[in-house]
Structure formats: C-alpha cells, structure tokens
C-alpha cells in the first residue's frame, strides 16, 4: 500500500516546495500592501522564459544568475510602474491594476514566443533520474523541499534579525504609523517585491526542471494555488504559507491518486473557501478588526 502511495507523496512534497517559494512572494506582498499580486504567477513564468532564451546563448553558470537578476528587475519594475502610483487609490483599483499587469505580461509572452510551448533547458545534476524505494524521479524532487526550507529559514532570520526586516514587520502591522515613524515605505515595498521575485525565480528553475515545458499561461495555475496556500496558512505569515503550500501540494497529488483528477484544481479552491468560512484568518493568521 505504502509503495503505491509513496510516489504521490514524493511528487506532492516536491510540488509543494515549489508552491511554497511562490506563496512566500504572495504572502509578503499581501502582508504589506494588502494586495493580491495577480502578476506574481506571470513573473514566475517570465523567469522560465528568461531561462529558455538566455541559456540558448550562454553557459548555464552565467545564465542562472542573469535569469535571477532579470526576474528580480521585472518584479521591481512591475511594482514601481503599476502599483506605486496607486498607493492612495482604493484597494479595488490596485487589484484591477494587478489583473491588468498579469494580462499584459501574458500577452507579451504570447507575442514573443508566438504562443508556442518552449522546451526548458536541462539543468545538470538536478535533472538526473534517481530511484527512491518504489519510485523513480528526478533529483530536483528531493532538492526542492530542502532548498525551500533553507531559503525560507534564511528569510525568516532576515525578517527577525535585520533592520530592513524590522521595517517590514512594522509596515505590515501599521502602514501609516510606520510611515510617520520615518520608515521609507517605498524601499521596504521594493525589497518585498525583490525578495518575492527572487524566490519565484528559484521556484521556476525547480518547477520547470520537473515539468519541462514553458507556455505563456503556465504560471497562472501554480500562481493561484500558491495564493490559496498563502491564505490557507494565514496571509501575511511566512511559515503559514510554507505549511499551506506543502499541504496543498500533497493533498492535490493524493486526490489524483484516488482518481479524481478532474477535481484536483477545483479541490484547491474548495479548500480555500472552506478555510475562509471556518477560520478566515488561516492557520497562522492574526485577527484584525475595522475601527468604527
């Protein structure tokens, strides 16, 4: 029995780790701006395409850092161009802007690639096959959860121990007061987007090594699922997002194991609605109430 379930668990842990890296970006941005950054999934996709094109012209040891830098630059630009001008606008406007950016990025990628699927380059070592007990898989499957935990631990340390981390916590607690206290809101927000995009870039390398085809809309689904993971764990909470992502990754693969593949995506949303109704603040979220 376990032999049959094990490969699913393995796939679940691996995809969960990749969702986690995206989910952290969502949860940090939401924590600070109260914005669902719909474009985050597309930044993840863009990282995939950067790699496809860049690795065609230069060796991987140059391509990997360059891809990371470009992805971070993209995330940074999106924030500056599409979200910063709307900082005082109603929340609905900025969310619409996020949807607009997502639409733009998808169409841009469609245009550049001609709408055709691109083959992701083979990254050495992590693309190799290995056999674990009853399952054969790629090395990346094992690497992903480990790397995810290392990166997220580093991030939590950054937020707990450094000055910029303290500023981030302050801004997410109370935007206006933090601003009055002389915290440079814009640089804090930019840092948030930079960290989020960096993790998305790493996530995309792991994800596309596993699933080697890149299409313009491929990031939409993992993006939404990562967001659900963030809500599930309690939006604004980084450990919450990671736990949520692993739960969703594993649950989704178990659903497939049971043969309800039609519902593997729908399940994620059902879980989201359930958690919103039962515990709207998620597993690790904090309660806030509106002042009258």
């Amino acid at each position, binding site marked *: 029995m376990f032999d049959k379930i094990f490969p699913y668990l393995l796939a679940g842990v691996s995809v969960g780790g990749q969702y986690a890296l995206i989910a952290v970006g969502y949860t940090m941005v939401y924590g600070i701006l*109260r*914005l*669902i950054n719909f474009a985050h999934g597309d930044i993840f996709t863009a990282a995939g395409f950067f790699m496809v094109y860049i690795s065609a012209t230069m060796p991987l040891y140059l391509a990997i850092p360059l891809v990371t830098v470009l992805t971070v630059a993209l995330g940074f630009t999106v924030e500056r*161009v*599409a979200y910063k*001008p*709307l900082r005082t*606008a109603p*929340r*609905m*406007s900025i*969310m*619409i*802007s996020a*949807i*607009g*950016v*997502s*639409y*733009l990025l998808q*169409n*841009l990628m*469609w*245009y*550049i690639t*001609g*709408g055709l699927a691109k083959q992701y380059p083979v990254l050495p070592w992590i693309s190799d096959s290995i056999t674990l007990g009853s399952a054969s898989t790629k090395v990346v499957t094992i690497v992903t959860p480990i790397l995810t935990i290392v990166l997220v631990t580093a991030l939590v340390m950054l937020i707990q121990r450094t000055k910029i981390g303290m500023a981030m916590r302050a801004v997410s607690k109370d935007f206006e007061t933090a601003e009055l206290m002389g915290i440079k809101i814009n640089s804090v927000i930019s840092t948030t987007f930079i960290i989020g995009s960096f993790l998305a870039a790493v996530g995309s390398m792991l994800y596309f090594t596993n699933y080697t085809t890149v299409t313009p809309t491929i990031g*939409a689904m993992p993006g*939404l699922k990562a*967001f*659900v993971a963030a*809500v599930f764990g309690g939006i604004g909470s980084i450990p919450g997002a990671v736990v949520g992502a692993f739960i969703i990754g594993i649950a989704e693969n178990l659903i497939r194991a049971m043969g309800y593949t*039609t*519902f593997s*995506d*729908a399940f*994620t*949303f*059902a879980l*989201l*609605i359930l958690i*919103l*109704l039962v515990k*709207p603040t998620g597993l690790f979220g904090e309660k806030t109430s*509106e002042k*009258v």
Partner: protein
Amino acid sequence: MKKNTKTIVNLVLLALLFLAVWVIERTSSASSMLITVLKKGAIYALIAVSMNLLNGFTGLFSLGQAGFMLVGAYTYAVLTIPVAKRVAVYQMYAGGAIHFQLPWLVGILLAGAVAALFAALIGYPVLRLKSDYLAIATLGFAEIIRAIIQYEKLGPITNGSLLLKTYPTFKSTLFPFAAAAICIGIIVLLINSTYGRAFKAIRDDEIAAEAMGINLFRHKQMAFIISSFFAGVGGALLAMYQGTLQANAFKAAMTYEILLIVVIGGMGSVTGSVLASFLFIACSEWWLRFLDAEQFIGSFQVPLLRSGFRMVVFSVVIMIVVLFFRRGIMGDKEFDVEGISKWCRRKFGKGGAKA
C-alpha cells in the same frame, strides 16, 4: 426638464439606435465585421452591465462572472438541443440522458434562473467575506463549477468536456440588441429604485448603510443573485452567438476581460459599460486586427507586427486607462439626456444653469 420628458427622450434615442442597427443590417453583407461586432458587443454589454451592478454599484468585488455565464450557457444549450441531434452531439454518452427540447425563450429564462440559483447557494457562504477574500472565493467557485461541468460522470447531461452544438441560435442582429436592451433596461430600473439606492449606500459605506437599517447580507445577496441571473442570460446569448459551446472557454481570463471592460467604461456607469463593451469588441475583433498580420509598405516590412501584437497593444492601452484614467470613460456618469445636458451646462457657461 421634467422626468417624463427625459424618459421619453431617452426612449426615442433607444428607438433610433434600433433603427440604425436595422438599417446597418439591411445595407451591409451578413459577413461584415461590423455585424459581428454589433452582435457580440450587445451581448458583452449585458454581461458587463451585470458585472457592474455588483462591482460598480454594490461595491462587491466578485470575480465569478465567467462561472455564472458558464452555468447559463450550459443550461440553455443542454435543454434546447433538438432531440434528433442528440445522438450525434453526445457521441460518447449514447445520446445523453435528456430526451426533450425546450423552446429557446424558456431556455434563456431558465439559463438565468439556474445561474441565479447557483448564486444563491454560493452567496450564502461567500458574501460574508470582505473585498479581496470575496474576489478570490468567487474566482474559486467559478473554477469549481467548471470542473463539475467537465466531470465525465455528468457527461450524459453536460457532454463532459466536449463541445455542445446544434442548439437554436439567432440570425438577426436585432435579437441580441433587443435581449440586451430589455435586460439592461431592467437593471437600470433596479438601480434607480429604492433597492438600487441601498446598493449604492452599501458601496459607499457599509457601516453607515447598516446603521441606516439596510440589511447588508440580504441586499448583497440580492445584488449577487440578480447580477448572476443576467450573467446567466448573457452566457446563453453568448452560446447562441458562438454556435458551439465548451466549458473550457469560460476561464478566469474571461472574467478579467469583462472586469477590464467595466473599468474602462467606468465603475458605476451603465452606459459606460455598454460603450466600453462595443469599443472592446470592435478593437479586439476588428480595428486592431491589422496589428496581428505582417504588413508591407512597398517592400518595407513594418516591424513588430505579427500574431499576438494586437493583444500587447491592447493590454498596454488597458494599463494606461487603469493607471492614468482611473475613472474610465464615463466615471460614474451616464450617457443620457440628463447627463448630456448637465455636461453642456458645465461646458458652455453658467447661463443655462437654472434652465
């Protein structure tokens, strides 16, 4: 101007619009792009207005529109496919489980009703959620509905994930215009009724509205159900327009498109949504099509033009509207006699202010 006169003038304007459509249909060939734009634009106008009722007038950020359209479209198609054609349509499900055909009008009304029923069920839990949580929950519900419709065990009814076709469609451009006009007319009447005022109060300030005795949940649910009813009708009309129907097309991207139409037209403006729908459809189906084809001026190939460029230009324009013209074409104003006369007064001096 007195209220009655205004209504009459507005009705006359509407009648002129219908006359114009009729003349266009008579004079241009049936395959002209103009006809296509008019048909699809009218249907999108209805859908956009129904979404505006929620997002613009009631202040509920719902992203479930595509889901309700899907329900409406499927209800219509499933119930109106001729019995004789069912064997061919449900090729994998031995002709399906339904062995009757309803008249198209009943089909359309049921499309709205079933969508409204779904909205009532879904609204019960999700309308208690606030702003972006509501958005993501409704988006999720739309995805769940799509998964259910594609579920192969429901194949005898929905044909699983496969195409539905051969249900009754329309030929005349006047049909979608008339249907959209009636539905939008009802929505306008609702918006200007005491219930519509309550919706706007909720949008402006939930806490004050509640303190004024407006039952938030009931009114939100009302707006949600009514909006979904018309989204369902819109879905049925869209199915009729397309001639074939597949659940796969009703994705989140479709909701986003409609949302962008509403934003371009102006949140809280019915006529804005209508104008924006026609503009949006005209650009995407017709005026900007040339951007997708390689063009030559002499032997010089115009750079950048190839498949997909249209959508890039289009999304850039949308971003410009979202960022710099946040109130859209109309803001929350209306393009009617009153709106025009107010605008004229503002534009052309204060002399007529008392008129």
